[in-house]
Each structure stands twice: as C-alpha cells, then as structure tokens.
C-alpha cells in the first residue's frame, strides 16, 4: 500500500484510469460484437427466409404436381395429362428460381452450415425427373407417388424449418413457428387434396387410405390449431380473410363425403379445383406471413445494422470526447500540481518574488490562492523584518556617524585600549592635534608614548596598564597611581617642537566580569596650566602691591619719601649720563650704574623696602652678566629698560605715598608720633633681617624711646645714618660665633641706640655695638692697597687719623659683595649724611670690644630739604 501512496500523482492517475479504460474498451467490444451478432443474425434470417420462401414456392408446386400426378395415375393417364405437363414446367421454373436465389445468397456466410441439407435438397430435386418418368410410365402406384413427393416436401419443409428457425428474436421465432405449423397444415391439406383426388377419381377408398386420410385431416386441424395459438393477430386476420368462401366450404362438404365412403358424388377435377383453391388461399396466407416475416427481418436487419454503426459512431464520439475531457482534466491537474510543486520549491529556496497563478477554481486553485495569501503574509513579515533591519542599520549608521562627528569635533583625545595595549582604530581627531602624530590606530600605547615622556614615567605607564586590566585590582586604587595623569610631553608638529601639558585619564570598560577595553581620554591642559602660571604671577604682583602698601604703612612715610626722591634723582642721573656720555667707555658707565644701583639697594634694604631692594638686586644681576664681556649700546638698553622699570615702581610708590601723606596731613600730630615709632621699628627690622641673612644672631636695643623727638625733616636722614651704621656693624663689626666664643663674648651680639634727654639746642644720640671695633692694621693695609695713602704715610699715621680712613669714599675692607655691604659706599655716606644735617659726630672704639658713634643733632635744621620733598611728591 505504501508503494501506492508514494507514487507520483501522474502514475496514480495511470493506475486508476488505465484499468478503467481497458474495462470500458472490453465492454465496448462485447457490445459491438453483440450488436454485430444481432445484425448478422437478422441478415442471415432475412436471407434464410428469402431462400425458405423460394423453397415453399417449390413445395407448393410440388404439392400441386403430386396431386396432379396422383390424379393422372388414378385415371390411368386420361385426366391430368395436360395439367401434369404444365405443372411440371411450373415446378421446374420455381426450382430454378430457388437455385437462382441460392446462387445470389451468401453461401459462405449465412447459409454455410446448411450446405449439406441444401445439397441433399438438390439431390431430391434432381430425383424428380426419375419420379416423373416413373409416374408417366406408371411404374409407381399412388402410395409410392405420394410417398416420393411427400418425402421431397418433408425434406423441403425441414430445410425451411432449419433455415428460419435460427433466430434469437422471440417474436420472430414465434411467428416462424406459426408459419411452420401453417406450412405443415398446408402440406397436410395438399396430401388430403391428393388422396381426395384419387378417391374421387376411383370413386372408392380402402381402409388403409381412409385411415391415412382421417389422420391427415386430424393432423391438418391440429397444425392449424397450433398455428392459431401462436400466430399473431395479423396472421389470424389474414387467415380469416383469405381462407373462406365457397371453395373452402366445398372442400369441407366433399371431405364429409369422403368420410362417408359411400358415394363419391363429385368429380375428381372439381375436388381438385376447390381443394386447390383452398390451398391457394393457404398459399396466400403463407405468402402474407412470409412477406410480413420478411419485412420484419429486413427491418430487424436494418435496425441492427443501424444500431451497430450508431453504437460504433457514438462510442467513438463519446470515447473521443471522454478521452479529450479526461486528457484536459488530467493534464490540467498535473500541470497545476507541477506549478504548485515548482512554486513550493521556489519558496523553499526563499524566492518570494512571484505569485503562483492557477486559473482553475477547484481545490488546487483554492490552494494556490491560499499559497498566495501565505506568500503575501510572508512577504509582509519579510518586509517588516527588512524595514526593521533597515531601521537598525540606519540607526547604527546614524550612531556611527554621530560618534564620528563627535570624535572629529571633540577637543578631547579619546580612544580605546585593548588588552594588548593597542590603541583603537577609531579615535577622536583631537588625538592627532594633541600628539602631532597620525600614526595612532593599532599602535601599542607604551611605544606611542615612549618618545614623549621620560623613561621612568614610561616604565610606570607599562606597569600601570598591566594593573588597569587586572580585574582583581580596584580601579580607584590603580587610578591613584596613574603616572601620566598630568604630564609634560614634547610633541613635534611641522618640524616645530612644542611642550605641552596633557592630562590622561583611564576608565575601565567591563563586559560581564571582564575588562575588555580601557577608555582613555586625553586633554591638552597647556593653556590652563599656562593660565595658572600667569595667574600665579599676577597673584604675586598683587602681593607685591599689597606689600608696597604695607611697606608704606609700616615705614615712616618721610623715610620712604626721601628714599624715593633720592632714588628717582639717582636713576635719572644715570639716564642723563648715558644720554650725554654716549661716546664714553660703556664698561665705565656700567660700573658707575652698578655702584649707584647698589647704593640704592642698600638703602632699600635698611628701610625694609623689600620691593625696591629686590628690584635693584635684579638690576645688579643684569649688570653683572654684562660686566664680564664686551658690550654694545644695545646691551645697555636692557639695563636702561630695567632702570625704567624700577622708575615705574618708584612712581607707583610715590603716588601711593601721596595718598598716605594726604591722610597724614589730615592728622599731623598723630603722623609725627607714628613716624618716630616707625623709625624704631624700621631699625629693629633692619637688624633682624641682616641678622638672619648673615646668620649672625644680633639683638637690637633702643633706649629712652620717649625721648625720640627727631624733627620730621631729619628723620629720613637720621634713619639712613642709623641703617648704614647697622649695616657696617652687621658686616664688619659682629664676629662669627666661634670668634665671639673665643673672645669670651656672648654668642648673640648687640646693637644699642640711646637717646639722651633732649636739651633745647640739640639731641644727643649714641650708637654702639659690641663687635670687634676697628682693626687699624687692616684699615691701613686696605688704604695702601686702594692707593689712598702710601705705605710710609700709613706707618706714620697716628691711630686717631688712621681710623678716619674709613670715611673715605669707596673704602671697604670686605672681599665679597652682597646686597647689604661690601661695595665700599658705607662710612663715607654716614659722614656725608651727618654733616648734611648740620650735625657733629664723634667715633670711639676698642679693638675686639666695641664700636661707638655719638651724634649731636641740632634742633633747628635747615629747611631747604622740605622744598625738595615737595618736589618728589609732585613728580
């Protein structure tokens, strides 16, 4: 069964249809054969009937001939001689017709099986001439004649019986039987006529003949009865119509006479005539039946013929139509199945572009529609998927594009590191700008940084990255140790090497429990760091300004004012000298400038004006650089520039001082006290500052503070004097710790300034330190060295005069130079300042013990400085 299930549909069709077609053809063949048999049967019957009719005609003539022969014999040749001759020729002509008919018939077909009987019949008919001769020659008696002819007739009727008895049509068969019964009745009537003819000829009838006659009449009636029973209505009517009338009645009457066997009161000829008339009527009935049978068989044959061909034609027609329809349907089905098969194959390969097209509205058509709906649905889903895919693609492209745009425009360097420390292919454009390199993608980050940072940082970076990708290590802990969090790099772009400050931050990127990448962000902080430096500088400047203000507030304004006035004038003198003395030796000019600036610096230091002392120190450094080489006017410009800068600071301070002076002017008395208090503070600070810088611990004492009533106009000068003295003490007077200890002194030195009670005329001020005093030998040596005196003069000089050598301009015993002393400007300046105030001074000392200077300052000082001060303020 499974084999059947698995067959292809066209084979299944074949399995169903081929046996069906074979069966139909077989049945068709049988039907055609049946029809053909019907036809050939009717045809043969028709032919047999025609032949039978001919035979009946012969029998009819023979019956006549028999009667005439018997009459002829009975009358010993008197009667019937003529009739006999006529009859014989009639008989022979009907026999000839029979032969003609026989020769026309289909001997090989319909009559083939009767050929033996026909041959026998021919023999019988051939023997007729013998019989006739014997009749004429009276060689045969009546019985024998009867016998012979009846034999031939029996044979003939049997023949007819056999010929027409072979039909399958019941109706015809019945009528054939009726006819045969009728023929047998007619034969008996014919024999009756013969016997009657003899009886009426001889006028007697023996018993044997009579019994024969009675039997004949009985048989005749029996056959007629049989005929009446089975014959159809038309035969009945023909019989009733034809077998009637006078002659029939006469035959009955003469038959009654014969039954009586007493008087045969009728002529034999008369009997013969009426009997013949009756038999002729029979013959007419016979012909009527035969003719109708013939018509019937002919009709049957034609009908069968027509039926046979009609069937064949219809059969072929229907067969062709059926085959045509079947082939259309089967072909259509198979084609549709084929289309569906190809379609499903195409779908299975993913081709949804075409729809299946089946025009029929049967199940396959419905399937096709369903398929198309399915394909539509699949296409819809497919389209939705495609749209979603396109959307995702679009989104991805968008995100990608956005990230590219971001990467292109962001000012931060961004890239990813993989676990092999390789830099990602995608990185922000700022990277190239920051590092001045385009070789970034895929580079090992450590190799990339190698030329940019110092080896120690590089080693740290390699170690750092290792820990960065270590999942066990806390990110914050690792990031605390980022060695390039803020780092200076040297990047090269277009051949120009620039220094940059960059900040590099690292952020881990996790996937599940693994660090897959580290995001690195790089920012260029050069600008902000520079800005920060700038801010620091401006902060410093602000601080300077604040210090300036504080200085002014802390220091006696008159001291500052004097200093500023002096400094400005001194600086201006430098510029003037440069202008007028262009042709002179620049080196000499430089030395002059240096000495002048140094002097200003010392003054700034002692009054605690750090801003100015620092500035002047800077100028000194600039000059020192130039002193050691050949200089040009251009080089000197830098010095002038620095001097100009210092001049500006002086102007700034002057304007600030003016504001402070305004305040003092509003509160004059307070201002005076403040000035004197600030004088003490300044001196104390000067000692402290120098003490720290020179690492010589020295204490400062100011005795009788309350007596400090130095007039305003002298405060500045007085302070200058005091500061210069302090400077000298610190530098030359106070010994180093070790020497002081050896000399039995306290490690800490002391400077004492003491004021006597003011008298009306003058103030007495004593300055004293506990240093080493003056080393006259050393002073003399230096004086000789500097060329102030000759060695001889020095040797002759008394101590008092030798000590005064220190007041010479440019004298110094120091071998080193710093901002506090050693420039050789010290004691000469003291002398000049004291004398400038109109005061007197007296110097006392003991070598290794102390140095002391007493100043007598008169109260009424000169007023000319006052106007100069105004000048300073106004400038």
């Amino acid at each position, binding site marked *: 069964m499974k084999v059947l299930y698995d067959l292809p549909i066209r084979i299944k069709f074949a399995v169903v249809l081929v046996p069906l077609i074979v069966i139909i053809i077989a049945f068709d063949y049988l039907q055609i054969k049946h029809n053909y048999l019907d036809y050939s049967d009717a045809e043969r019957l028709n032919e047999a009937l025609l032949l039978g009719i001919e035979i009946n005609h012969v029998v009819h003539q023979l019956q006549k001939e028999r009667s005439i022969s018997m009459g002829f014999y009975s009358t010993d040749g008197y009667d019937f001689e003529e009739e006999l001759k006529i009859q014989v020729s009639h008989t022979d002509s009907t026999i000839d017709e029979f032969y003609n008919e026989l020769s026309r018939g289909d001997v090989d077909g319909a009559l083939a099986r009767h050929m033996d009987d026909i041959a026998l019949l021919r023999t019988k008919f051939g023997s007729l001439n013998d019989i006739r001769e014997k009749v004429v020659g009276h060689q045969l008696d009546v019985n024998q004649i009867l016998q012979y002819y009846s034999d031939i007739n029996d044979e003939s009727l049997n023949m007819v019986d056999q010929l027409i008895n072979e039909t399958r049509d019941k109706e015809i068969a019945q009528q054939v039987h009726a006819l045969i019964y009728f023929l047998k009745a007619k034969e008996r009537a014919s024999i009756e006529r013969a016997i009657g003819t003899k009886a009426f000829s001889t006028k007697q009838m023996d018993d044997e003949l009579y019994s024969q006659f009675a039997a004949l009449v009985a048989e005749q009636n029996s056959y007629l009865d049989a005929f009446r029973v089975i014959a159809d209505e038309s035969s009945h009517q023909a019989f009733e119509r034809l077998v009637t009338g006078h002659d029939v009645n006469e035959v009955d009457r003469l038959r009654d006479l014969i039954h009586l066997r007493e008087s045969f009161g009728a002529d034999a000829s008369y009997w013969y005539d009426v009997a013949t008339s009756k038999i002729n009527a029979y013959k007419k009935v016979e012909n009527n039946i035969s003719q109708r049978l013939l018509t019937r068989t002919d009709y049957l044959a034609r009908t069968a013929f027509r039926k046979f061909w009609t069937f064949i034609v219809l059969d072929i027609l229907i067969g062709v139509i059926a085959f045509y329809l079947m082939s259309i349907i089967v072909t259509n089905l198979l084609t549709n199945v084929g289309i569906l098969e190809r379609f499903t194959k195409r779908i299975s390969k993913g081709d949804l572009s075409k729809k299946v097209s089946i025009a029929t509205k049967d199940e396959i058509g419905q399937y096709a529609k369903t398929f198309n709906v399915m394909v539509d649905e699949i296409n819809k889903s497919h389209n939705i998927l495609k749209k979603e895919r396109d959307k995702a693609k679009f989104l991805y492209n968008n995100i990608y594009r956005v990230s590219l745009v971001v990467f292109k425009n962001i000012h931060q360097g961004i890239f990813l590191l993989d676990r092999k420390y390789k830099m990602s292919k995608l990185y922000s454009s700022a990277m190239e700008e920051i590092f001045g390199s385009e070789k970034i993608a895929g580079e090992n980050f450590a190799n990339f940084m190698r030329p940019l940072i110092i080896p120690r*940082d590089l080693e740290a970076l390699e*170690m750092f990255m290792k820990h960065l990708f270590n999942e066990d290590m806390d990110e914050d*802990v690792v990031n605390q140790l980022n060695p390039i969090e803020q780092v200076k790099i040297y990047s090269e772009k277009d051949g120009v090497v620039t220094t940059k400050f960059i900040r590099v931050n690292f952020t881990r990127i996790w996937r599940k429990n693994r660090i897959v990448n580290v995001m690195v962000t790089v920012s260029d902080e050069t600008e902000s760091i520079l800005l920060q430096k700038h801010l620091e500088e401006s902060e410093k400047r602000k601080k300077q300004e604040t210090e300036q203000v504080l200085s002014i507030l802390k220091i006696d304004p008159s001291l500052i004012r004097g200093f500023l006035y002096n400094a400005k004038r001194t600086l201006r003198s430098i510029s003037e000298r440069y202008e007028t003395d262009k042709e002179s030796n620049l080196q000499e000019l430089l030395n002059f400038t240096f000495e002048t600036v140094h002097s200003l610096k010392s003054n700034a230091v002692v009054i605690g004006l750090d801003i100015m002392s620092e500035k002047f120190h800077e100028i000194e450094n600039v000059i020192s650089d130039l002193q050691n080489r050949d200089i040009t006017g251009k080089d000197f410009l830098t010095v002038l520039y620095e001097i100009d800068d210092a001049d500006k600071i002086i102007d700034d301070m002057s304007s600030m001082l003016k504001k402070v002076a305004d305040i003092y002017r509003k509160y004059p008395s307070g201002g005076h006290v403040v000035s004197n208090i600030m004088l003490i503070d300044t001196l104390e600070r000067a000692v402290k500052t120098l003490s720290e810088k020179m690492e010589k611990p020295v204490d400062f004492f100011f005795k009788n503070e309350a007596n400090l009533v130095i007039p305003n106009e002298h405060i500045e000068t007085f302070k200058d004097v005091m500061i210069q003295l302090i400077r000298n003490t610190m530098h030359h007077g106070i010994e180093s710790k070790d020497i002081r200890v050896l000399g039995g002194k306290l490690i800490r030195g002391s400077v004492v300034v003491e004021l006597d009670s003011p008298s009306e005329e003058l103030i007495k001020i004593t300055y004293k330190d506990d240093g080493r005093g003056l080393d006259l030998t050393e002073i003399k040596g230096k004086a000789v060295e500097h060329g102030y005196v000759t060695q001889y003069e020095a040797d002759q000089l008394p101590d008092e005069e030798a000590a005064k050598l220190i007041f010479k301009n440019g004298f110094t015993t120091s071998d080193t130079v710093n901002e506090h002393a050693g420039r050789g400007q010290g004691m000469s300046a003291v002398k000049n300042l004291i004398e400038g105030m109109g005061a007197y001074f007296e110097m006392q000392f003991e070598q290794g013990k102390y140095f002391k200077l007493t100043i007598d300052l008169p109260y009424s000082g000169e007023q000319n400085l006052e106007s100069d001060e105004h000048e300073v303020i106004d400038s």
Partner: protein
Amino acid sequence: MRLLIVDDSSIMRRIIEKHLNEYEIEIIGMAADGNEAVDLVKKKKPDVITLDITMPGMDGLACLDEIMKIHPKAKVMIITALADKLTGLRALDKGARGFLYKPVNAGDLAKAFDRLLKRNENK
C-alpha cells in the same frame, strides 16, 4: 578583621589607629620598621596590613616581598608620603591591594578600607 599597622612615625600610627577606631577592626599590632613588621606577620597572621614605604632599615617594598612570602593572603594597603607613582605601581606588582597618600584623613582612610574589604568579600 585583624589589622597590623606598619609605619616608622608614631604619630602616623596613632592617626591610623584613631581613624579606624569606629570600625570593627581589631588592631593586633604596630611595627615601626620592616623587620618588626615581618616578625609580627609571622606570629599573628593579620588579615589586613597598612604599610609605609619609606622606613629605616628594611623599606616598605622589601617588607612587602617578605610579607607575601610568609602570608600571601594578607591584604596590604600602602600608605605613603612618597609621590613617586612608579614605586606605588611596584607595590601593586608585589601584591599590595590598596593605596593611599599621606597625609591621610578619616574619610580617605575609611573609603580605602571599604574598597579593600569589599573586594575581599566578593572573592
């Protein structure tokens, strides 16, 4: 949680101790130098160790090497004034798990300990 503090500065040791007082940390010892620290680790097997780098005698890195040999499970947190990052990274290389710059304040120390111990719990 048992803690060993290793620092040559007594003030620093006290600061760490004071800051960690509020936590459930039992301070099982303090060492002023590397050798002392190694002895204490041998004897007491602390869970957590705070370790200074700059110390007289055996310095922090050498001490860390020794500690890792004796007691590899110890969680070591470096607390140093040394600004040099390479040294810090070397300490991580040798097995340190935490890092903190001096001067420390209570907040930083607490955060660093949270981090160190949380990591511990996760394992």
